[in-house]
């Protein structure tokens, strides 16, 4: 059965002369491609939370000493951890590609006296920062520098 979505979402400030039906969410909403992508975007919350909790374990292992660190690396080499980290990487790239594409569209028309830069420039800037940070982390954590 179709159910009403946010009942006030589309309500005009003053009722007009034309009567309109309340917005409805169709039953099969989760089978629609755009809706599925949206739900998948929200579902990346799960790998994100797990990555955060695992990073907490990384920090505690570093605080405890070399044995704890070796044990952690041993655990992380288990196929299940490897599969999860690959999944988390895919989730992060998916979130980045989608969010950085949407971000320029979510800018206000004016920020104080200034107009925000063109969408393409914001989009390119976000990608530059993303690639730059990834490269820095790869270089530092990958042992190339310092």
């Amino acid at each position, binding site marked *: 059965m179709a159910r009403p979505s946010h009942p006030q979402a589309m309500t005009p400030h003053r009722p007009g002369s034309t009567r309109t039906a309340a917005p409805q969410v169709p039953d099969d909403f989760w089978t629609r491609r755009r809706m599925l992508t949206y739900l998948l975007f929200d579902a990346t919350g799960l790998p994100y939370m797990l990555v955060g909790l695992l*990073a907490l374990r990384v*920090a505690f292992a570093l605080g405890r000493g070399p044995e704890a660190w070796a044990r952690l690396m041993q655990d992380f080499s288990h196929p299940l951890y490897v599969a999860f980290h690959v999944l988390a990487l895919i989730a992060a790239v998916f979130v980045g590609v989608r969010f950085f594409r949407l971000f320029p569209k979510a800018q206000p028309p004016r920020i104080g006296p200034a107009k925000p830069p063109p969408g393409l420039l914001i989009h390119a800037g976000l990608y530059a920062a993303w690639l730059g940070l990834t490269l820095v982390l790869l270089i530092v954590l990958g042992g190339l520098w310092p």
Partner: protein
Amino acid sequence: MKTLLLRLEPVIWLLFGAGIMVGTMLLPGYLLTVGLGAPLGLLPEGALGYERAHAIASNPIGRLVLLGIIALPLWKGAHHLRALFADWLGHGPDGLIGSLLYAVAAVGSLLGIYAVLTL
């Protein structure tokens, strides 16, 4: 509960926004090295051996980045999972589910602050 969550909304949104923006920028580099490269032996010898990993993480910038990798994805994840549950289960249990998810993120963030300060 819902009222409290609404009052905290600006703080939650700030942390969620930082999570989706900064967290997403940090994750690929972290996952490729700490999550996959080091455990699978794909990195140069000693790149993330204990000595070097500890030295990087206990540097002030290292502590901040590590805290970011712990806390920001937690807030991004909590807020998005709350939205997902609201879509599936409606707004009835939203107060309870939201509170539980944010509690995990808050406790995780506090433990993260403790962990990076005691490295």
